[in-house]
């Protein structure tokens, strides 16, 4: 990333962090699990077994080269 890009990112963080775009009573939609980034732990566990462990990541966190054990 160039110096200009890094500066742009820092300015964006500074500007956005100073802007309160929502009030407390406006958070109802975002406080619902539908808006959460992660799903239930049990479904994530199965997704790790079926998806992540079939690719070249670390299987799941702490696993070996790929599809390895020692996860969860």
């Amino acid at each position, binding site marked *: 990333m160039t110096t200009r890009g890094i500066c742009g990112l820092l300015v964006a963080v500074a500007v956005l*962090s100073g802007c309160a*775009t929502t009030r407390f009573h406006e958070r109802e939609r*975002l406080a619902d699990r539908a808006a959460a980034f992660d799903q239930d732990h049990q479904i994530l566990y199965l997704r790790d077994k079926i*998806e992540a462990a*079939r*690719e*070249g990541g670390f*299987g799941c966190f702490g696993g070996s*080269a790929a599809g390895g054990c*020692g996860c969860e």
Partner: protein
Amino acid sequence: MLGQLLPLFDLLAILLLVAMFSRAAFADEGAPFGAPISPFLLHQPNGYLAIDLLAFSQWDDGGDPLVDEGFRYEALSLDIRLRPSDTVTVRGTAVVAYLQNDPLLVLPSTIANAHVTSASTDFVTLDASLATDIVLGDGKWIISPGLFYHHQWAYLATGIDLDVRHILAGGDTILRVTYNGRYAFVRQVNWDGSPVIDDHRITNNAIFGWTQVLSPHLITNVSLQYTNQAGLLSSTLQFVGLYNSAGQPVLLVDEVLPRIRNRGQVNFRTRYTSFVGTSYGLDLSGYADDWGLVNVAIEPNIETPIWGRARFRAWYRLADQKGTRYFTAMPQTVEPYMTQNSNLGSFVNQNPGVALLVPFAERWMLRASLLGFYRTDGIFGVGGSLGFSVEW
């Protein structure tokens, strides 16, 4: 077998469309004053217990001709969390599984040092972990020491975990720094039955995350991740087939991979929620490591009420992977590093999935999921889960 899967993909697509268009009938612009609290509100209960049955089948219609990667997996999962105070949460998980491999694969007679191969025989596995979340510094620090244990036929991994999370800024802009560390003691039996190997594997993982609430409907997250692993990274259960100039396999030798691996990853995630309980999401990720492996993935997803208080979630993940430089399909000589682990090869991977969550009684939730994957190298599978949770 792919032909048998295509109707499943069609069914998933139809369910997704039905869920999207049925949302209008259940539009809910927020709970009225005095309405009961939604079972889907994000919160931390004082206690949580979940029990699930998991099942997964994998088929091998390609890949390495010397390995049959097909198997069946059935498991019972237990997840319990207790929060004795506002600053301490104890988390425990245990998954007991029974894994049945495809029958032994008879090798060509040209191979001098083996007659049959199989990943291993049928066996029982146990995954277990225990951790404690300790909240410090007015909620800005969470420190989580823990233990984990994984055991299966010819393989044991056990050790300690440490997670440290620090929130730098809150409100509409949440900046978070996370460290995960795992020190694993590993004991493996070699694929040819040679002596047990005791070794270790250390994982250090650092994440910088920036979550931004852009409006009452829109939230995004960008994270940068660096992971370093050191120790035993190859699997002693993996072997590599050597071939002669005529393309015939002649010898099986050990997989050998470097003992250090560094990986960088970028993630972008966003959720647009039009009504309470309905969200449209898009997740992007990309990672590359110093083994030459590159993986990029995109996942659109949706969650919506379908009837009553039940929720339906669907996702479709598409990943494109360029394999490691150490992946070698038909080598003729032994190289310093070499693997035929298909997970480290090149392919496109498709992952459709759906989940259904049905709250019942006061604090109970029924949960079911169905998901699958299809890789262009001929490895594919279908799995699912059925279970319930209760909180208090």
